[in-house]
């Protein structure tokens, strides 16, 4: 079972986001970058399938700045076999990223092309389905369960109020959601081994963006709650305010 896993370098979810003076980027000072949490599930899924099959390779692919080497090393430390970094700065739009990734993936042999369901910086949920469309591959997103038998696969994807059960054939694009597995932590041995694994770097030229950032801002600070009162005594006042003031009852 051969897999390619696309992974992104993103600010840690606990980052306090501050907009930089240019209003087009976030202030980098003190930001800790990590492997996108949903991509950890994708790497884990690839590793488990390779282990279950007893053969195959897991290649991780990232488009990002020089710092994304660390992101790829993390995936290698988890157990991936090889990594490719497409070097590009800035935060290109979904389609631009998808085109560059698809270009690199085209011609490679794989059974599964795995993604996280979403990058937690741009929250786009775009790249997996775009890559699939460009490469004309079957695609299932927000997957919480994946079963393969030979070339056939069945996935469950999360939808409002339930799951869709989806059938398709490999090779295919699968974008995974939390819950599909428990990602492993890199072991010390894994971290040491990762240093010797191949990490190929390529300079790439990005296409012109289809979507452009006009400006970034921080959401207005919320004003603190009006404390209606204490305990059950306050309920009548609350209900009245919800009905008459907020008009939501």
């Amino acid at each position, binding site marked *: 079972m051969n897999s390619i896993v696309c992974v992104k370098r993103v600010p840690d*979810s606990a980052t306090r986001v501050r907009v930089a003076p240019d209003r087009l980027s976030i202030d980098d000072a003190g930001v800790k970058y990590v492997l996108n949490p949903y991509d950890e599930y994708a790497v884990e899924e690839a590793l488990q399938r390779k282990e279950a099959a007893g053969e195959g390779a897991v290649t991780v692919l990232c488009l990002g700045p020089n710092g994304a080497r660390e992101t790829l090393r993390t995936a290698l430390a988890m157990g991936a076999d090889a990594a490719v970094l497409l070097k590009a700065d800035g935060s290109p739009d979904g389609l631009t990223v998808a085109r560059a990734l698809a270009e690199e993936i085209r011609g490679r042999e794989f059974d599964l092309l795995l993604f996280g369901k979403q990058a937690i910086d741009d929250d786009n949920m775009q790249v997996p389905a775009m890559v699939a469309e460009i490469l004309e591959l079957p695609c299932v997103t*927000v997957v919480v369960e994946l079963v393969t038998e030979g070339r056939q696969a069945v996935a469950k994807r999360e939808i409002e109020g339930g799951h869709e059960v989806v059938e398709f054939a490999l090779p295919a694009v699968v974008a995974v959601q939390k819950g599909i597995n428990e990602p492993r932590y890199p072991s010390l041995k894994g971290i040491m081994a990762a240093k010797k694994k191949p990490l190929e770097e390529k300079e790439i030229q990005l296409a012109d963006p289809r979507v452009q950032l006009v400006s970034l*801002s*921080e959401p207005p600070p919320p004003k603190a*709650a009006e404390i209606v009162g*204490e305990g059950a005594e*306050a309920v009548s006042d609350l209900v009245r305010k*919800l009905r008459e003031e907020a008009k*939501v009852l």
Partner: protein
Amino acid sequence: MADVLAVCEVRDGAVRGVSREVVGAAARLAGELGGSTHALLLGPPGVGSGAADLGEIGADRIYVAEDDDFGLYHPEASVRAVAELNGSGAYGAILFPATAQGKDLAPRCAARLDCGLATDATEVEVEKEGLVVTRPLYAGKALARMKFAAAPALVSLRPNVFSPDPRPAAGEIVALEVASEPRRIRVREIEAGERGKLDVAEASVVVSGGRGLQDADHWALLEDLVDALGEGAALGASRAVVDAGWRPHGEQVGQTGKTVAPNLYFAVGISGAIQHLAGMRTANVIVAINKDPEAPIFGVADYGIVGDLFEVLPRLAEEIRAVRAAQ
């Protein structure tokens, strides 16, 4: 002059409510762009008969593709339909609901049409540089304004944020032929969660519980409040209680759960960690019930009661029932 296309969503043979939000937004934009409003829906035979009322909220034309194969989500046919209509219509914008289906379909269409896409928009405006979309990034910790290099601009709209206005239009139904083959994936079935239960991401009122509830059994109190609030209300949960196994992950609100924007959100026994706020801060009205006056949830809530939730909840359900019964 540019027309706007609203891609509607169908489930269980009926047009879903969220589609009306998309048609309403499309009609407003089309008005500003001086074009007309088109709606598109794929569904099982008969689905078109329930779509005529989209004319009341501004749809000039409603394209309906009916096929037994369209009873469940069919991404390939949907992409074909959008591409075909765009080929003949050359839209200024194509709008989708930012639902599970819309967020799967919109990027496929964007790649096919080679156009830009903005996900989960909370505002869409026509300005001198064309369509400008506002959308949250970093789980709502920043807001981005985005513009498009070329038309059509593809945008998915966050549910519950846009509401349609009455805007009488022709609502002309036009049958559309879309081949159901070839297909690369087949949705075999929908496994429904608990029967008849509304999803937290779709609800107009959400009652979320956190670790303050102390035990899975105590959810009866929250269920009673949901019941008192009536149709449109659903349960939500913090990650702490999902991790504890008290509630299913499908109910989790927050960065690693669902993003919700209901009209009314109750946070009960939830401290208000930044990752929880990421999923609910765009709710219209937030009510917090917490025994700790210093809990950060009070920093984002509109109204708060400081107190023991076990005393507050029964009384709250009772009074809300009374108020609703009197209406």
